[in-house]
Structure formats: structure tokens, C-alpha cells
């Protein structure tokens, strides 16, 4: 799949921009995720690729083949729908074999492929059940098998895990990733769950307001958010208002100055500092870092302790692993603490 670009206007009286000049290139064999909050246009984008809607402008090509005007049944793309859309009047086997039937394959081949798919998703014993006799996880697998049966070049997945409970969701993440590696099919996965996206994807496109906010590997997106939105949306970052004081230095109001990669930003300009909660180091003395912050609250997370800090109207959260590998843990609400940062952990975002 090469060179996808489109703008889509949904006209309901006044034009409403769902997707605004999206430029994306998704590679072969890639687990690609469209991540964003609801209403960001990610599902619309998926529906455009699937052919359920047509772009207002721009074009989509799949393996260098222009898709404009091609109905869904003409595209080498299959979809796993959010609520699975299993055909209620057909059993599991007929559901999975449906596409092959539509393509006019002979019975033997259909039976063969269906059996293989049933094995792939581990539902051999359920072949003759009706969809309403299956659990949520089993339905999910049928939907997956059904979409994979015709061996699409691209598999679209529209929040397929959102209807499952947490435990099952985590299990299915691993299975989906394994399945993608096994089949070598390009997966385009839509989700609003950043954890899900980070866990499975080769690359992620973060979408908001119909635009791509950042495109990159999970590491790039997590460690180097391109803007405030991405930083805030991915992994609950701390955002601190600051000002560039000199080249390579930023000042956080009266709390102190820090070393940071300021790039081309001029002195005196306001910036936003982004720090992950787990990259904060707390200490009682003001030798390093900025402060003082007041400890507002502490919560046990199991493997870590979260401290909620406040100073000069700015809120900061720090996650300290238990076992004391990184600083002290014995702060109580009301204590004064100073915060330091691991080298390179601080990101400077231009406002």
C-alpha cells in the first residue's frame, strides 16, 4: 500500500470536516495503528479504506492500485467490525466461509480454508454453533477468522477488542500480534486505547481533529511526543509550563532551572515541558531538580507508588517503583519534595 492521501468532508447542511488532508503511507506486513480519541476521524479513515464511504477529495491506493469508486467487494481488504457483525442466521462455519462462497470457490476449497481458519483461531469445536451461542471472545475470533479467510492484503480492525473484558482484551492483544506475524498480512488497527496501540503496533498514527498529530513507532510516540496533544493523550504525561531562559536551559517559574534540549527556541519563549511520571526522581533536599513541591496524596499502584505533587498551581504525578531503585518512598502528604529528571527524559514542546 503506497501513498494514501485524502480529505473528507461530511456535508450535513454545513460541511463538517471529519478528515482534513490525511497523508499516510502504510507498509506491507506492518501492524499499523490509528490511535485517537472518539470523534477524531479514525473510524472514518478506516471506512474510506474499506470502501464503505468515498473521500470528498484525495485518493487512496492499495498496492499502487487506485481505489476511487471501487465498492467494498472489489477491494483486497477485509474488516473486523467493532461489534463483529456476524451473520446471525449462519453458523460459525458458514460465516467464515461466506467470502469464499461469494468469490465462487468450490466446496472442497471452502471447507479446507474454513477448517484452517477454525484451527488458526482455535474454534474447531465451535464450527456448527450459531453466533448467539458464542461468548464475546469466541465471536471476536469468528469475526477475525471470517475476515482472514479470503486472505486479504490488508486487514482492517475497527476497535475489535473494545467489547471484551480486560483480561480477555489483554490475551487477545498477544494473539492478534502473533496472528499478524504468522500471516504476514498488513493489519490496520483502529483504537482509542493507547496501551493497546503501544503493545501491538509496529507504527502508530495519532489522530485528532481529523489530522495526523504524529506518526512513528510506539517508542518514538511515547518517548518523543511531537506536541502537547500527543504527550497528554499517550501515557498520562506531566505537563509543566516553562520558559526558555538560555540555550539548553528552561525555567519553571520560581521552582528552578533545568537542562533541556531547547533546539531553535529563542530565549524568553514559553514552552511546555513533558515528563513521564516514571521518569521523575523525588528527593527531600533541593540539591537537584526543581521544587519545592508539596505532596498532596500518595496511592499504591501495586508495583509502584504514585505521588501527586503540587507547586505554584502546577500538578505533577510521579511513579516510584517499589524496592527503592530510584529515590525515597517514605514521603507523606504535606511533605516538601524536589523533583529531578533522568537525563534526556525531559521533552520541550513549543506552544
Amino acid at each position, binding site marked *: 500500500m503506497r501513498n494514501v492521501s485524502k480529505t473528507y468532508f461530511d456535508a450535513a447542511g454545513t460541511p463538517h470536516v471529519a478528515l482534513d488532508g490525511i497523508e499516510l503511507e502504510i507498509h506491507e506486513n506492518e501492524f499499523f495503528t490509528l490511535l485517537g480519541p472518539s470523534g477524531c476521524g479514525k473510524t472514518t479513515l478506516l471506512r474510506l479504506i*474499506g*470502501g*464503505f464511504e468515498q473521500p470528498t477529495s484525495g485518493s487512496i491506493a492499495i498496492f499502487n492500485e487506485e481505489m476511487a469508486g471501487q*465498492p*467494498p*467487494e472489489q477491494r483486497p*481488504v*477485509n*474488516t473486523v*467490525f467493532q*461489534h463483529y*457483525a*456476524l*451473520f*446471525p*442466521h449462519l453458523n460459525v462455519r458458514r460465516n467464515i466461509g*461466506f*467470502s469464499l462462497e*461469494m*468469490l465462487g470457490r468450490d466446496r472442497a476449497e471452502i471447507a479446507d480454508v474454513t477448517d484452517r481458519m477454525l484451527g488458526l483461531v482455535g474454534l474447531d469445536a465451535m464450527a456448527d454453533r450459531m453466533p448467539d451461542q458464542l461468548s464475546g471472545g469466541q465471536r471476536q475470533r469468528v469475526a477475525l477468522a*471470517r*475476515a482472514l479467510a*479470503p486472505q486479504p492484503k490488508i486487514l482492517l480492525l475497527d476497535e475489535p477488542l473494545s467489547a471484551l473484558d480486560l483480561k480477555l482484551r489483554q490475551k487477545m492483544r498477544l494473539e492478534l500480534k502473533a496472528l499478524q506475524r504468522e500471516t504476514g498480512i498488513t493489519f490496520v488497527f483502529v483504537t482509542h486505547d493507547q496501551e493497546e496501540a503501544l503493545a501491538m503496533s509496529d507504527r502508530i498514527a495519532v489522530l485528532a481533529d481529523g489530522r495526523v498529530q504524529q506518526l512513528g513507532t510506539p517508542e518514538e510516540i511515547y518517548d518523543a511526543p511531537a506536541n502537547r496533544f500527543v504527550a497528554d493523550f499517550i501515557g498520562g504525561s506531566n505537563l509543566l509550563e516553562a520558559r526558555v531562559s538560555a540555550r539548553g536551559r528552561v525555567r519553571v517559574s520560581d521552582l528552578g532551572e533545568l537542562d533541556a534540549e531547547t533546539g531553535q527556541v529563542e530565549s524568553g519563549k514559553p514552552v511546555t515541558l513533558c515528563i513521564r511520571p516514571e521518569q521523575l526522581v523525588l528527593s527531600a533536599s533541593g540539591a537537584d531538580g526543581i521544587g519545592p513541591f508539596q505532596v498532596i496524596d500518595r496511592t499504591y499502584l501495586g508495583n509502584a507508588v504514585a505521588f501527586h505533587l503540587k507547586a505554584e498551581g502546577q500538578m505533577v504525578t510521579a511513579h516510584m517503583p517499589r524496592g527503592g531503585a530510584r529515590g525515597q518512598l517514605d514521603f507523606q502528604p504535606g511533605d516538601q519534595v524536589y523533583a529531578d529528571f533522568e537525563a534526556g527524559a525531559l521533552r520541550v514542546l513549543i506552544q
Partner: protein
Amino acid sequence: MALLDRRDKDIRNLPGFGTMAVVAVVFLYAPIAFLTLYSFNSGRSISQLDGFSLRWYKAVFANEGIQTAALNSLTVAVIASSVATVLATAAAMATVRLRFRGKEVAYGIINFPLMVPEIVTAIATLIFFATIGFRLGLMTVIVAHIVFCIPFAYLPIRARLASMDAGLEQAARDLFARPMMAFRRITLPILMPGIISGWLLAFIISLDDFIISAMVAGPGATTLPVHIYSMLRLGITPEVNAVSSLMIAASSILVLISAVLSRKTKT
């Protein structure tokens, strides 16, 4: 005591309402039951029971006029309800699944036959056929019935389609089904209970009609209700009772079928 007080204040149990419900059911069934009872009378009287016999049913089955009329009624009902069901299904697909201008107008026209008094429909249809010089016969009855059967077939089909997930059709398209194929293999089977109840409803409504058929039926195209009506000129005879009882039985069976069907699909 407190419990009694509670019950006394519970407006779910109002005194006399249960009795009234029983009265309503008696009111609804007594005449029909009485008619059926007398259809088994061995004597000629319709006010005095002489004994049990099937002689009037035998008379009905031997009556050529009744046979012809019954056959006409069935022919009209089968054709009219089938055609109306096909048209109503197409109309429901458009009004539920598609976006287009003038949908309100389309609804208005489809439901229009429900709003016109039957007698008006009857004479308007008669005047129409007379004006265009179309000879009255079974064909005119069928056409008139198709018209008023359409909204009756449309309502259950539309309801069923509206409750069906449109995503299923998209899933079928996604799985390489062309639009017609997606309709045949996915939409139609899922829609079937609605289509069947629509058809049954139209069928019963067609069989029920008297005044429209009476106006537009040509010679030899008499339907069963029209024929029974003409039998009434001689007063209510045991034969009228017998053929009426047969119609009661027929409609009861149809209602039962549709009730069973709707229960099956509700789960």
C-alpha cells in the same frame, strides 16, 4: 392491616376492572361462539338447537356458488398480498436503508390507504375503472386489493428492517458480496419473519374486505364475503353460519401461525 391498606391504595388493582376485562372478552367472543355453535345444529332453525350434525358443512362444500367465491377470494388474497409484500419490501429497503429527499412524502403515500374510509376507496376505484373503461372482473378486485394491502405488508417489514443491524450488509459487501448477493444471502433471510408477518397481515386484510370487492367485482368475480352478503337476502341460514364458522376457523389458524412465528423470532 398495613398490607391490606397498601393493596387498597395500589392503583394496579382497581375494583371492577378485572370484571370489565372478562366482560370485554365475553362481548368479543360470545357472538362468534354462538354462531359457531348453531352451525352444528342438525335442524334448520337458527334459534333452537336440535342436535349435532355436520349437514350444513356438507351443504357448504356442495354449494358451487360458495366454492367459486372462496376460490376467487383465495386467488385475490394470494396474488394481492404477494405483490403487495414484494412492493412493500422494496419500499422498506429504500425508506429504512437509504438517504434521500422526500422520504416524508413517501411515508405519507404508503400509509395513505390506511387514512381513507373504505367506502370512499371503494367508489373511487369503481369510478376510476369506469372512467378509463376497464371492465370489472377479478383483475379489478386484485388491483384494488394490492393498493390497500401495501401499507399492511409494509409496517412489519419496515419494523423488522429497522431493528436489523445495517452493519451486517456492509460486512457482506466487505466479504466480496455484490449488492444483490448481500441482499439475497444476508438481508432477505434475516428479514424473513417480518416479510412473512407482513404477508399474513395483508392476506387476512384482503380476505376480510367486503365493500371494496363488492363495488369493483365484475360478474363471476364475487369474493366469499360478497357471496355471503348476498346469501343474507334470505336471512341468516344455518348454511351462512357454517361458512362463517369456516372463515372464523381459517382466520384463527392464520393468527396462530403468525403468533408462533413472532414468538420464535423474538428470542
